[in-house]
C-alpha cells in the first residue's frame, strides 16, 4: 500500500520527506526572499542585508508615479471585477440550469480566454484598440482585463450554483413565489459567497495582469505591474521589492478571503 504512511519503508519515507520538503521550500523561497529584501538596506540587493530599513517603502510611497499606477491598478481591477461578475452571473445560470443543447461546447468556448496564450489576446485586442484609437485609455484596460477575468468569475459561480439544491428554490415557487422572486430571495443569498469569490478572483486576475497591460499602457496611464515591468527593464532597485511585497500581501489577503467565502458556501 502506497497511500498510507505506515506502508512505506523508512528509507523511501525519509527520502520522500526530504525531497518534498526541498520542493516546498523551493516554492516558498522567492516569496519570503522578496519580503526580506524589501526591508534590506543595500540597494545592490545583497542578502543577507547589512541592516534593516524601511527607506524603500518611504521611497515607494513618496513617488507619485508608483502611487498613481497603484491607484490605476485598483481602479481597473474594481471595474473589471464588477463587469466580469455581471457578465458571468447570467451565463452561469444558463449553463447550469439551461435545457438547450451544446452547453459543454459553450462552456469550453467561454473558458477559451484562459487557454489562449495571454500574449495572443494582448496582440489581438491591441490591434483592435489601435484602430479605434483607444490604446492608453481606461476603457481599453478594463475591456481587455474583463476578457481574461470572466472565466475565473464564471467557474466560481458555476461551482457554487451546482452545489445549491434547486428543489429549495422550487419549493418557494410552489409556495406561490414568482420564479424571479424565488431566485432573488432564496437562491442568491445561498450562492452569494460563490459570487463574491468569483468577483475576488476576477479582481486578482486584473490586479496581476502584466502582458495585456504592457500593450495597453501609455506614458500617462499605466498599472502597477506595468510600472514594475518598465522599471525592471532599467535596473533591479529594491523599490520593486516593495511593490512586489505589496502585491504578495494583497494576493494573500484576497486568496484567504475567497477561501473563507468558499468554505462558507459548503
Amino acid at each position, binding site marked *: 500500500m502506497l497511500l*498510507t504512511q505506515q506502508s512505506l519503508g523508512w528509507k523511501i519515507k525519509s527520502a520522500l520527506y526530504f525531497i518534498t520538503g526541498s520542493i516546498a521550500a523551493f516554492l516558498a523561497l*522567492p516569496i519570503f526572499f522578496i519580503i526580506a529584501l524589501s526591508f534590506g538596506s543595500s540597494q545592490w540587493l545583497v542578502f543577507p542585508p547589512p541592516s534593516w530599513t524601511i527607506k524603500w517603502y518611504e521611497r515607494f510611497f513618496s513617488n507619485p508615479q508608483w502611487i498613481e499606477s497603484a491607484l490605476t491598478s485598483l481602479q481597473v481591477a474594481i471595474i473589471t471585477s464588477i463587469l466580469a461578475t455581471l457578465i458571468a452571473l447570467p451565463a452561469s445560470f444558463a449553463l447550469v440550469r439551461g435545457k438547450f443543447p451544446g452547453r459543454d461546447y459553450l462552456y469550453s468556448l467561454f473558458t477559451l480566454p484562459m*487557454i489562449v496564450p495571454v500574449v*495572443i489576446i494582448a496582440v489581438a485586442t491591441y490591434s483592435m484598440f489601435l484602430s479605434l484609437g483607444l490604446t492608453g485609455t481606461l476603457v481599453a484596460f478594463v475591456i481587455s482585463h474583463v476578457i481574461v477575468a470572466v472565466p475565473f468569475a464564471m467557474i466560481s459561480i458555476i461551482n457554487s450554483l451546482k452545489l445549491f439544491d434547486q428543489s429549495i428554490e422550487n419549493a418557494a415557487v410552489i409556495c406561490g413565489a414568482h420564479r424571479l422572486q424565488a431566485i432573488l430571495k432564496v437562491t442568491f443569498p445561498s450562492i452569494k459567497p460563490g459570487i463574491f469569490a468569483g468577483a475576488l478572483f476576477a479582481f486578482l486576475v486584473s490586479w496581476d495582469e502584466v502582458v495585456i497591460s504592457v500593450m495597453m499602457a501609455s506614458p500617462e496611464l499605466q498599472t502597477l505591474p506595468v510600472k514594475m515591468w518598465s522599471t525592471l527593464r532599467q535596473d533591479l532597485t529594491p523599490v520593486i521589492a516593495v511593490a512586489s511585497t505589496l*502585491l504578495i500581501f494583497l494576493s494573500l489577503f484576497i486568496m484567504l478571503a475567497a477561501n473563507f467565502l468558499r468554505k462558507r458556501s459548503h
Partner: protein
Amino acid sequence: MSVRIYRQKWKDASLLLPIILFLGVFFLIPLIGLLVQSVTQPQLGLTNFAELLATSTYLKVLGNTFLVATLVTIFAVLLGFPLAWCITLFPKGWGRFLLNVVLLSMWTSLLARTYSWLVLLQSSGVLNKILMGLGIIDQPLPLVHNLAGVIIGMTYIMIPFIVLPLQASMSAIDPMVLQAASICGASSRTVFFKVFLPLCKSGIFSGSLMVFVMSLGYYVTPALLGGVSNMMLPEFIVQQVQNFLNWGIASASASILIAVTLVLFYLYLKVQTESPTSSNTKD
C-alpha cells in the same frame, strides 16, 4: 417539441447574451482578425508562413519554444510528483500545509516571483554565493539571462499546475487496490510501477498537457529570465508588433501558437472524462 419547451429553451439561452456579445466582439473578432491578417498582410497568400518556416532565426525561436516547454514539463512532473504524493499521504495537517504552500505560490503575483528569481539567480545572487561559500564552484555560474534561467523560473511557476491535477487523481485511487496487490505478493517496487503509477497516468497526462500548453504561451518569465539568444514565441510576437510593426509575421506566428494550443486543449478535454457543466458532481 411543444411550443412551451421551445420557448423555455430560448429563455434559458438568452441569459448567455451578455457573455456572447462581450466575448464575441472583444475576444473572438480580434482573434479571427489576427488569424486573417496572417494570410493578408502585407499581401494575400501564405508568404508569411513560408518566410517563418524558411528563415533560420524564426525557426530557432520556434525550436526554442518547444524545447523549453518540453524541458519545463519534464522537470515540473519530476518535482510535482513527490509533492502531490505527500499531500495525498497526509490528508490533514502537513498535507493541508503543503497544499496551502502550493496554492500560495500559485496565487502570488507572477511579476513579484519572477523578479525574485532574477535577484536570486544573478551572478552576485544568493544561490551563487551559497554555492561558492560551500566551495562547490569557484566562479559564479551564469544562471540567468540564458536557458538555465528560463527553465528554473518556468518550472517553478508550473509546479502548482501539475500538483493539483495529480493530487486529485491520486486521492481518487482506492487504497484497497494497492493493498490487494501487495497481499497477492507484489513487492513495493512492483506495486509502485505496475499498479500505482498506471493509476496516476491520467493525472500526469492531463497535468503535463496543461503545463506544456501554458509554457508555450508564457511571456513574462522567459522575457525577464531568458537571454537574447533563446527567445520564445510569445516574446517574438510582441517584438514583431512593437518594434518592427511586422503584423504579418506576428499574426502568422500567433496563428501557429493558437493552432498548437487548441489541438492540445482538445486532447486535454478528451482525457478529462467529467463534463464541467453536468450537475451530478461528487464534490
